[in-house]
């Protein structure tokens, strides 16, 4: 099967958050302990966490035109980069691609936080609490990194989030078709939103989550044309880790420490140069 991609169309999103809830249900994820709202407007939690693989961001409203204020409501999850930083920095090769989706293998994950540190979208998160009673296939174990796996772990034809979306704001299709649809839709919405844009065609050599925005990506804190991590640096960290981890005797906590030390050393070197 040719690789697929998600299309997030914020011009169709009504913010019902069915995606967020259905992800929790399908992946048997626990609820966040929330008080009031964590982010702007109704956003909860504020950002993705180890137990919230996708969520809906409600941006502050732009009232420049009071007859047509702009309120962007955006589904956010792992963008599944073509060249993912997380995959490239993982010292244990716990992150791999499956049908084009970026997937973490928690069996191999040592919870070093490399992926968390290097993802500019702040997607993967290392679980700090023991929540194993919740996990089934997921095995929600402490010190493991978690994020959206596009329902490849609990396989289903249409990922739970896209399946639940009532308005067509979140769909999934063959990647080429998604790109075409995005272009066509952009042309259509430009008359309503002259600054409308498509995000995800170029970043990290192309994302598997293409987002149609009502304004420029920068307005939503989305950096444009970002390139993948410097491979020399990533390799340097990994090389250093390979040596340091020999002293860990296989203990996960020592492996994590070995990674942190390696990263610190290499980063210092790079900054000095």
């Amino acid at each position: 099967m040719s690789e697929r991609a998600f299309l997030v169309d914020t011009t169709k999103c009504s913010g019902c958050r069915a995606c967020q809830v259905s992800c929790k249900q399908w992946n048997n994820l626990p609820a966040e302990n929330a008080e009031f709202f964590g982010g702007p407007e109704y956003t909860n939690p504020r950002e993705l966490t180890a137990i919230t693989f996708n969520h809906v961001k409600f941006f502050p409203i732009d009232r420049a035109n009071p007859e047509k204020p702009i309120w962007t409501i955006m589904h956010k999850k792992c963008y599944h980069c073509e060249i993912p930083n997380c995959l490239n920095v993982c010292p244990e090769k716990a992150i791999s691609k499956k049908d084009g989706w970026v997937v973490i293998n928690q069996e191999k994950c040592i919870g070093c936080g490399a992926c968390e540190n290097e993802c500019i979208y702040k997607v993967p998160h290392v679980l700090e609490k023991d929540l194993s009673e919740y996990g089934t296939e997921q095995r929600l174990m402490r010190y493991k990194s978690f994020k959206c796996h596009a329902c490849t772990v609990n396989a289903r034809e249409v990922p739970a989030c896209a399946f639940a979306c009532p308005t067509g704001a979140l769909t999934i299709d063959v990647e080429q078709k998604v790109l075409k649809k995005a272009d066509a839709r952009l042309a259509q919405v430009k008359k309503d939103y002259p600054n409308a844009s498509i995000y995800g065609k170029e970043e990290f050599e192309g994302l598997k989550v293409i987002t149609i925005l009502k304004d420029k990506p920068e307005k939503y804190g989305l950096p444009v044309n970002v390139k993948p991590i410097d491979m020399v640096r990533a390799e340097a960290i990994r090389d250093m880790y390979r040596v340091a981890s020999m002293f860990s005797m296989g203990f996960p906590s020592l492996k994590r420490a070995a990674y942190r030390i390696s990263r610190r050393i290499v980063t210092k070197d790079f900054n000095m140069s």
Partner: protein
Amino acid sequence: MTNHWIDIKNADVILIMGSNAAENHPISFKWVIKAKEERNAKLIVVDPRFTKSAALADLYAPLRPGSDMAFLNGIINYAIQNDKIQKEYVVEYSNASYLVNPQYAFNDGLFSGYDAGGRKYDNKTWQYQVDDKGIPRQDKTLKDPQCVYQLMKKHYERYTPEKVELVTGCPKETFLKVAEIFCSTHKPNRVATIMYAMGTTQHTVGTQNVRAYSLMQTLMGNMGLAGGGINALRGESNVQGSTDAGLLFHLIPGYLPSPNAKKHATLEAYLKDPAVIPVTNDPMSINWKKNFNKYLISMLKAWYGDAATDKNEFAYQWLPKYSKATPYIVLFDEMDKGVLKGAFYMGTNPVVGGPDANGIAKAQEKLDWLVAVDLWETDSSIFWKREGVNPKQIKTEVFMLPAASSVEKEGSVSNSGRWAQWRYKAVKAPGAAKSDLDILDLLMKELKAMYKKEGGKLPEPILNVVWNYTEAGEHEPSPHLVAKEINGYEYKSKKLMSTFMDMKEDGSTACGDWIYCGSYTEEGNMMARRGLKDAPNKIGTFPEWTWCWPLNRRIIYNRAAVKRDGTPWDEDRWIIKWNGSKWKGDVVDGGPAFGPDKKNPYIMNGEGVSRLFAPSGLADGPLTEHYEPWETPVANLFNSQALNPATVKLDSIAAELGDAGRYPYVGTSYRVVEHWQAGAMTRNLPWLNELVPDMFCEISPSLAAAKGIRNGDKVRIFNTRGNIRAYALVTERVQPLKVNGRMLEMVGMIWHFGQGCASTGDSCNQLTPNIGDANTMIPEYKAFLVDIKKEA
């Protein structure tokens, strides 16, 4: 809904007002988006707040809560003044040309016939002039000063855009854009739909707000057409089914009026009342209600079987009759007075959902017993241990009956589009939980046994009622047998009927609810159908998907979708056609016997045409007029009446009236998608509590600044009735509005919270008033006065 959910996709203009459909009816936006994407439809959202629905709108217009009528009347005036009406439709299919009694008058907010002492109207002067045959006189040129159209023109000319701005706070330019876009549908090939909900109805002028929609849609010629209609978005799954089945104080099954003890002492008196069965001499009128005798008698036959005969008025005397109208508000007033001794709550939680919730909790203390049938404990069933009371001093005995949830039982669910959809039981109910049908079945059997053994004041209605809903060999009642009775059958042969056109008034047919006749026939359970065949022109009719009342008619008033010659107003999205001898398309309203040239399309009133002016049927006037909410910060600029003059004011609320000096902000209440009604269904679900964990209110940045409140602060909101805690969401989506020269702020609150669940908070309804609409008495939840302060 006159139309149905899918049909929204056929609209050119969508007006969402008094509804936040994106939030409360998320699936509707599938069709709204489709209309926008495929038809380039324009979405207009009129709302005090910039809502999720507004986020997807082409035009957003703000207005002050409680000023809807001024806004709507302004649109009516705009249409008339600018001659943007569908003239041919209006002349043929409305009473615009009908001449009204010359004694009809309207003066300073009062229509003729007002009785100030009784706060009610005598509608004698609102009647039509009739000719010697008793047929209303008409002037089809619409020029006669006594014709409805001219009376309207005069009545609405006061609603100028300038005045609309002063009263509603909506800038004149924005209002005019709304009016212009909406009225662009006066052309036959353009259609607007109106999606409304409780933001329209929960006012002291709620019924008249909906009337205004009828007037607008009639003037535009949008009723009966695909993509048009007036679409009430029902607030709860199967609430449509519950009203269809007569679960309202003023109706019995099938929307027949509740019989009144004094006025309808005999079956004959009931059937002779023109308020039940209209009288008409007009040969153009189908006057469908003339069949109500058949429907009532068939219902009595279904209830009482052999015991209902022409010798005993078909057991009409056993049918309960009211001597005093007891809508929701009056019910709890009576409870408070100790008139009611016991209460049964099934899936209802008045201590969160009812107005003046503290008052309701207090009223419940007067009960001897309360039975609460629910999935969980609710505020209403644990009212005896609420904050500030001593359980020892409350005498009420509370019984909790665990209920099965919707997926734990089989049966039909009717949606807003009138589709009765059959559902199956997915899982067994846990523990001792039972379905509502089981509970009612056991209860009725026990009652019958007790009456048989012990007698009673009036045992006959209980002893004689036919109660066989259990298949041989089973011990639980079958929803199929109930559905078959609701559908109706020929009494002797027990053959299931397929149409109410075959119903008789001689006792030879039995039927629980005439509008459901055809839902469960000899061919099987039509509600269980899942056929995916669309109408030939692909307008999303899907006539083989489940079943819809009446007679599987997908759009009601569809006779008005064609001209007198039978051709559709709009060929592209035709719903029915008449070729001179036969109908094609949807099931035609009023039966296929007559063409559009022979009969008028509006079959449910005596005239057969849409009533722009209502000579009867309304408590508060034949035309719509703006009155202020009971609690309001401003004077009424349209007339010197403040409150709707026909609204009932209970003696018990006089002391509760808050004034704007002490409570300067307009309070309003609404829902969010994450929580369900009074919250018992959702506040126990962690995933939903994650999204909306706490009771909150929404206020503008300007009000927040004035009160020293920051986003996320805990606040107190209070008035004469209550004092609640909430978190403050300070948002640009709420803005003060300039009303009559003064900036007015509002405090918007969700009403899902209460105690008794995993996530708790104060109920907003501690603040809402005990007053309601003049016709339905639906409480005024949407506009009242409050003050707010940061919690110390």
